[in-house]
Every structure is written in C-alpha cells, then in structure tokens.
C-alpha cells in the first residue's frame, strides 16, 4: 500500500511537471508576442535570429508556438469545463430525483447525442462558422455532456445508495445536504479524473479538426494548424513540426498522468474501505 501511494504521488507530480511547459507557453505566450506575427524571414530557414527557425511563410516558429497555445488548449479546456458543469448538474439531478420518470426525462434526451461522431460535428461547425473558437468550444462541450452526465449519474447513484447516505437519511439530514455534502463530495474524484482524460481527448479532437483544415484559418498560429502547414518540411525544418507537437504531447501525457493518479487514489480509498 505504501509503495503504491508513493508511486501514485510520483505520477501526480510527474504529470504536473510535464504540464508546466505547455501551460506556461499557452498562458504567458500571448502576453509577450505580437498578435500579428511578421513574415520577416526566408521560408523554412534555420537560425539567423530565429531560435527555432521559420515556417513556410517565413514567420518565427518560436513566436508562433507561443501564440498558438492559447487557442489549442483554451478551446478544449473551456469546452470540458462547460461540459462538466452542465453534465454534472444533469447527472446529479437525475440521480437525486426519486421518480424514475424524471430520471428518464433528464437523462434520455442527452443520451440521444451520444452516438454522434465527434469529429464530424466539429468539422461541420468549424466550416460553418469559419472556425470561430467559441462555436468550436460549444460544439466540443455539447459532445462531451452526455458521457459526463451518464458517468456522474452512475457514480452519484453508487454513493446515494451506500451505507453513509443511508445513515445520514436515518439521522434526518435534509436531502440537499446529503446530495451536496456527501454525494457531491464522493463524486468529485471521479469527476476530476474523468475531466482530465476528457481534456486530453478534446485537445486531440480540436487539433485534428484544425489539422484537417476544418477548423481555424490556415495561417493561424494554432499548434494543430502549424503542424499541418509545415508537415511537408519535416526534414528541411524539423522544428516547425516538432516544437508544437512536443508541447501538445507534453500536455496530453501530463493531463493523463494526473487523471491516472487521481483515479488510482480513488481506487485505493475504496480498497481500504472494503478491507479494513
């Protein structure tokens, strides 16, 4: 148990460390770089005042990468935050409702959205609204709501039918207190771990849509767009592809490690509860 706890701890700190670089680039980058990146160098040049070289349009890759993180990560993070808020509310409400009909009424319509292929919806929305970040974020959020609602409903039902909730109910605690005090808290680690995994896949989906040319403008500094635009020059100017890729992968590995550590903590807590 001790060794497991230490390894889990290492996983969480490792994840946080990996996240540091891409998140810093995304948050600080837009503050220190100009909105209009000048095309002042020869295409695909290495060196010459550009630490990471230039891209096809002669723009500085370092500046591009610093500028593009905000849209690459921001859209996905906003979307997942929105999805967890809406989906969590729906899931908790459905689990707390005593009547089965209300439960069905809340959760069934949401389940209708579940089989919609996510990349297709994003590409339709992306093309339709010319890759407007808000539209893409809303689409990603809408796609994630059903799964979040389902998962949190199941987790909340688990907690609401457990011995602790039973005891609270016998003691005459109010339903609201049981729901937010006990059930909400019990659901929190599940929600956090799920959100972590979801941010990773949302970043992928948005980046993939941009890579396919279905999202943002092809000259935008977004990481997915930059990777797609410079891919022909992988051997001529590797940094134009590798720098945004590296940051993207660092971010998703970090987020997954964090989520994994949180889930392991949850499983361990359960194990100790069952084997006293």
């Amino acid at each position, binding site marked *: 148990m001790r060794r497991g706890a230490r390894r889990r701890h290492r996983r969480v700190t490792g994840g946080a460390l990996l996240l540091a670089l891409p998140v810093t680039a995304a948050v600080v980058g837009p503050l220190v770089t100009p909105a209009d990146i000048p095309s002042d160098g020869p295409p695909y040049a290495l060196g010459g005042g550009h630490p990471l070289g230039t891209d096809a349009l002669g723009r500085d890759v370092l500046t591009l990468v610093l500028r593009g993180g905000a849209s690459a990560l921001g859209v996905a993070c906003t979307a997942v935050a929105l999805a967890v808020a809406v989906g969590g509310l729906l899931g908790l409400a459905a689990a707390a409702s005593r009547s089965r009909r209300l439960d069905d009424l809340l959760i069934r319509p949401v389940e*209708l959205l579940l089989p919609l292929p996510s990349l297709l919806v994003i590409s339709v929305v992306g093309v339709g609204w010319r890759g407007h970040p808000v539209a893409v974020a809303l689409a990603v959020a809408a796609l994630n709501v059903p799964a979040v609602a389902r998962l949190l409903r199941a987790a909340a039902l688990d907690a609401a039918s457990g011995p602790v909730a039973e005891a609270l109910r016998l003691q005459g605690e109010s339903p609201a207190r049981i729901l937010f005090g006990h059930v909400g808290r019990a659901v929190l680690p599940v929600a956090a771990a799920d959100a972590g995994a979801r941010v990773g896949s949302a970043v992928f989906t948005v980046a993939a849509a941009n*890579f396919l040319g279905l999202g943002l403008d092809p000259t935008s500094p977004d990481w997915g767009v930059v990777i797609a635009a410079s891919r022909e020059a992988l051997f001529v100017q590797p940094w134009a592809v590798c720098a945004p890729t590296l940051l993207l992968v660092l971010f998703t590995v970090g987020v997954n490690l964090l989520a994994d550590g949180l889930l392991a903590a949850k499983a361990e807590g359960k194990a100790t509860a069952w084997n006293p």
Partner: protein
Amino acid sequence: MLRYTLRRCGWTVVQLGALSVIVFLLTDLLPGDAATVDFNEQAGLDQVARLREQMGLDRPLAERFADWAHGLLTGDLGTSLVGGGPVSEVLSSSVGVTAALAAMTILFLVPLAVAVGLLTGLRADSRTDRVISAVTLTLTSVPDFVLALLLVGLFALRLGWLPSTWVGADDVWWQRPELFVLPLTVLLARTVCVLSRQIRAGTITALHAGYTVQARRLGVPPARLLLWHVLPNAAAPGVQELARTGDQLLGGVLVIEAVFAVPGTATALVEAVQNRDVPTVQALTLALAAVACLLNLAADLVGQRLAPRTEVLR
C-alpha cells in the same frame, strides 16, 4: 434478456430517428449553400436565387425535412448538388475502403487489447506491468496525426520500406496489402492502448472480487477461473469501451484518410463539407452516426450477455 434486447432495439430506433433530425438541422445551419458556392464571384444575386429555386433550396425547412426523410425511408439518399449524381453512388464508391480499414483494425484490436490487458492485469504492479502501462499511457497521449507524420517520415521517406500515400492505387488497393501497414499501425496504436487499460482495470477488479476469492478457495483451476469468471466480468466494461472506441476510430479514420490520401468515406465527407454539398454531408454523416449507434447497440447486448446484472439497477 429478451425483454432487455427488445427494449434496447426499440430505443435504437428512436435514437436513429432523433439523429436524422439533428443531422438535418445541423447541416441546415451551415451558412451559405451550394448555390453560392457553385457560382463564381461575378454571379448576380438573382442568378443565385434562380439556382437556389432550381435546387429546391428555397422551400421551408419542415417541407425539405419531410421530403428528405421520405427519401431516406425509400432508400433514396438524394442528389449530390456538386456532381449531380445520386448520393448513394458517392457512398457506395467510397465505403469499401473505409469499411476494410475499420474491419481490419477491429480484427487486430480485440485480441491484442485482451492479451495486453490480461497480461498487465494479472501481474499488476510487477515490472512488466509498469513498463507496459507506461508505454500505453504515453501512446494514448500522442495524437494520431502526429503519429502518422512520424511513421511516414521514418518508414516511408527515410527508409523507403512502405508507401506513404494511396495516390495511384485507385482501384487495386485490395491487391496491395503493404498500403494498409502504416494506416493500420496508427489506428491500432491508440485504440489498443485505451482498450487494454480498460481491460487491465477490469481484470484487477474481478480478481479481487469476492466471488473470485471464493472460487479460488473452492479449488477452481486457475485457467478455468480466468476464462470463465474473470474474463467475462473484466470484458464487460471493455466492450462498452470498444463501442466508444468506435467514435475514436471514426475520427481516426478521418485523419488517416486525409494523411494517406485514402479514397474513403471520410475523404468524401470532408470534400462535401468544403463544397457545402448538403445532401452528401447529410447522408454521409447520418450513415456514420447510424454505424456508431448500431455499434453501441451491439456493445450493450454483448455486455448484457457477458455480465447480466445491470437490469437490477434502475
């Protein structure tokens, strides 16, 4: 089981109906239509209006939907606004490659994922498990288009072992298995990792469950215990995950087809979206969504068969 199956099938029918409405509305929201795309910039507004009338795009939404739904039920998917041919032709000419890619992926995916998941789950926290888990966690975090670029760079451009594109292999793709190697590798990389992690977690839970401990105490041989008691319970969440992988697979196929220039459904769809060819987009999106829907149905039925207990929960 029968009642569950019937209810689940009925629900799928409702789902498909709702999906068709959603798809229709979503594609209707696309600003600009084929009439504006078809013309160059000199076209006058009245010309565009005339073309729109000719294409039947000026009728009210409900009427167009009724028309479209009626066509769907009678097997007529509509006429492509750009090519002028029937949409079913676009679908049938492109679906073969995509179906072959997806089927081959699933064929390799299931045994690989079960093997890796069981191997790591049975030896949880051993050195093998830690190494494999680290690899799978990292691979799940690499976007498929990045993986595709790296593999093409290494095996196709540097070493020259495998073809990097399907261009030039128009109709004889099924005679050239080497075309499939790189796309399949990319498609498998992430899905195997996601699925095997799920099966690993399921195996660990099932191994520590009360009934397994009891069965072991009663002297059930290890192989039988594993195949009869642990695997079905460990696979139940895995099957659900497999259905969800279907969504990832669709997305993955889209990216793969774009990177390797595969003439499949996804390529046709991306093209149609860019051309605002609404009937084609509608038909292809609905077809892909229906496949996802049926995959979910199959997964639920198989999961129910493997571990028949969810009925008790509300």
